[in-house]
């Protein structure tokens, strides 16, 4: 662990690269802004006051640390490995997203920025951003694909209640990637007073590293909490998380990258199946490297380098790219990436509800579906830690529809 030369935790390099991935592929107008941001982040990183303020808010406002919970009934039902759930769905706003938002908003305040913009897909990042902006009295504008505005109405209303302006994005196909395009267009226009709060470990350097660092609290807590259950020094044998852009997964994985004994698994959204019809969002299993939204990473794209739309039952995984650090971990083989279909995720969703009394979001349901595949094949002393990155309240309408239940009926 102390051997810096053989560490997986040194990335990115000074050019924001993880191997060949990452970088700063932005227009000249934005370049000075991201250099300023990098400088300020480097200062904040070593400033005890910054960390003290964040720790205080994490504890009293977000409710950290989130519990590490032994899922006993699930473990028994699957009959193999011992399953722990990292309960990040218990955070304020119901997902891991707020870990990162708090860090970025504190940074925006240090930089004197008064106007916060964000993109959102399912609305979780938008809600977290609107929440923290309300907490600090900052103007908040959230770009959301028109299609998502329609299918995530409760989150749109939440953001409005919190005082944010939600801008439905109709450019392109009106999805998460188009929302990110429009947020970048806003930023390029309002360069002086605006801070772009990106919701995942993607975008131009320093975002992938910065968001990872803010989310790494997830993995750090797991390192401290598992010994409380399993005895001193015990590390998980497998850690597993769902991946859209990949922020909750990077947050869980990062503190374990140099622990050779820890098997790392990322679960992508396989939609209707990873095939040539591209009805999935599995950038690593079904895409190839390209450049979009400021970084080089695996992308869903056609032969001409045009970006394709992803497909998933989970709006939070519906992004044609993935954080560059995941692309790198994939290529060097440090982490393993698999995909789970909509159908498998729906089964896991229901299994979790009835076995543990936890209604999971559709995003971690993908991770859980893979846990359900692997746990029975592993010995009982094998410990799996899965990140329960969000709660499922937002998804009950989608799930009802997929299961053919009419919610307007009362019984």
């Amino acid at each position, binding site marked *: 662990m102390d051997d810096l030369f053989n560490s997986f935790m040194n990335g990115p390099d000074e050019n924001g690269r993880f191997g060949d991935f990452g970088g700063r592929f932005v227009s000249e107008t934005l370049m000075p802004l991201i250099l300023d941001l990098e400088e300020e982040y480097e200062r904040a990183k070593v400033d005890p006051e910054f960390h003290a303020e964040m720790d205080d808010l994490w504890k009293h406002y977000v409710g950290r640390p989130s519990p590490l919970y032994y899922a006993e009934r699930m473990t028994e039902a699957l009959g193999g490995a011992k399953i722990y759930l990292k309960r990040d769905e218990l955070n304020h706003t119901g997902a891991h997203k707020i870990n990162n938002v708090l860090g970025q908003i504190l940074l925006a305040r240090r930089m004197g920025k008064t106007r916060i913009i964000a993109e959102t897909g399912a609305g979780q990042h938008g809600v977290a951003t609107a929440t923290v902006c309300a907490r600090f009295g900052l103007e908040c504008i959230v770009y959301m694909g028109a299609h998502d505005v329609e299918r995530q109405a409760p989150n749109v209303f939440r953001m409005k209640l919190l005082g944010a302006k939600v801008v439905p994005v109709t450019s392109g196909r009106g999805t998460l990637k188009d929302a990110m395009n429009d947020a970048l*267009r806003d930023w390029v226009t309002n360069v002086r007073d605006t801070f772009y709060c990106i919701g995942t470990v993607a975008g131009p350097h320093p975002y992938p590293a910065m968001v990872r660092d803010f989310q790494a609290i997830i993995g750090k807590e797991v390192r401290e909490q598992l010994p409380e259950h399993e005895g001193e020094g015990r590390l998980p044998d497998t850690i597993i998380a769902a991946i859209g852009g990949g922020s909750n997964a990077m947050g869980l994985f990062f503190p374990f990258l140099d622990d050779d004994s820890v098997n790392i698994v990322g679960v992508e959204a396989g939609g209707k199946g990873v095939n040539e019809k591209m009805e999935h969002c599995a950038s690593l299993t079904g895409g190839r490297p390209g450049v979009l939204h400021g970084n080089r990473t695996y992308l869903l794209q056609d032969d*001409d380098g*045009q970006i394709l739309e992803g497909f998933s039952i989970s709006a939070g995984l519906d992004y044609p790219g993935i954080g560059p650090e995941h692309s790198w971990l994939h290529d060097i083989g440090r982490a393993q990436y698999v995909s789970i279909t909509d159908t498998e995720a729906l089964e896991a969703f229901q299994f979790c509800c009835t076995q543990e009394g936890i209604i999971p979001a559709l995003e971690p349901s993908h991770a859980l579906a893979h846990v359900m595949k692997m746990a029975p094949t592993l010995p009982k002393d094998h410990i799996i830690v899965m990140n329960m990155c969000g709660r499922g309240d937002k998804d009950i309408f989608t799930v009802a529809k997929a299961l053919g239940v009419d919610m307007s009926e009362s019984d």
Partner: protein
Amino acid sequence: MTRIDAKFAALKAEGKKAFVSYVMAGDPNYEQSLEIVKGLPAAGVDVIELGLPFTDPMADGETIQLAGQRALEGGMTLQKTLDLATEFRKEDDTTPIVLMGYYNPIYSRGVDTFLADAKAAGIDGLIVVDLPPEEDSELCIPAQAAGLNFIRLATPTTDDKRLPKVLQNTSGFVYYVSVTGVTGAAEAEAGDVGPEVARIKASTDLPVIVGFGINTPEKSEAIASIADGAVVGSAIVKKIGEGESTADVLAFVKTLADGAHRA
């Protein structure tokens, strides 16, 4: 010396300012797009910027976004964009063509293959919006080695500290983006732009042309008078999007070109 260098040298000798026009390749379809591009030199266009369509044009406003969508829906590709340039070159061997777009379609084809194909198609320079100087090793350096100009954007956020870095590997000309924002959104004021152009010209011998927000012959003239030339994109693309005939589009281009040439 590329066609770009030759063109600017000739304009300088004549004491004329440059008029640069942008159109999206394949908009509204391949045939009409080719017809429009072929008519640009006679309408007074000195340098043609040919847009390479991309699904995610992050630095462009609605007008050019929609042009890219029309082109892609009509089956436009990087190859067909190069084909269009090849066709144009059969009749015109002097008007420079600058290919303008985003990196991914180029990266997807492979940089070396792309550069060889672009050169063969008669492309003279590249403007790739999402490749700042920090990423020069990707395409800028290989393009210069292949004999293509790499034209960089300078913007209102490019301060004195950063300017040398932006100018370092730039060739052909410098494109000054007169406003912070996307294409076609805000209006440029010659009064604000003049000092900025002077600041850039103090650091380079390259011609400095100004774009973003120019949409009338008067603005074209005003901007060209305080720089080495003016670029118009969205205003022309808007006419194409409104379904105007090739003749009407070119007549509009001519009024803008005449404006710049009066300067």
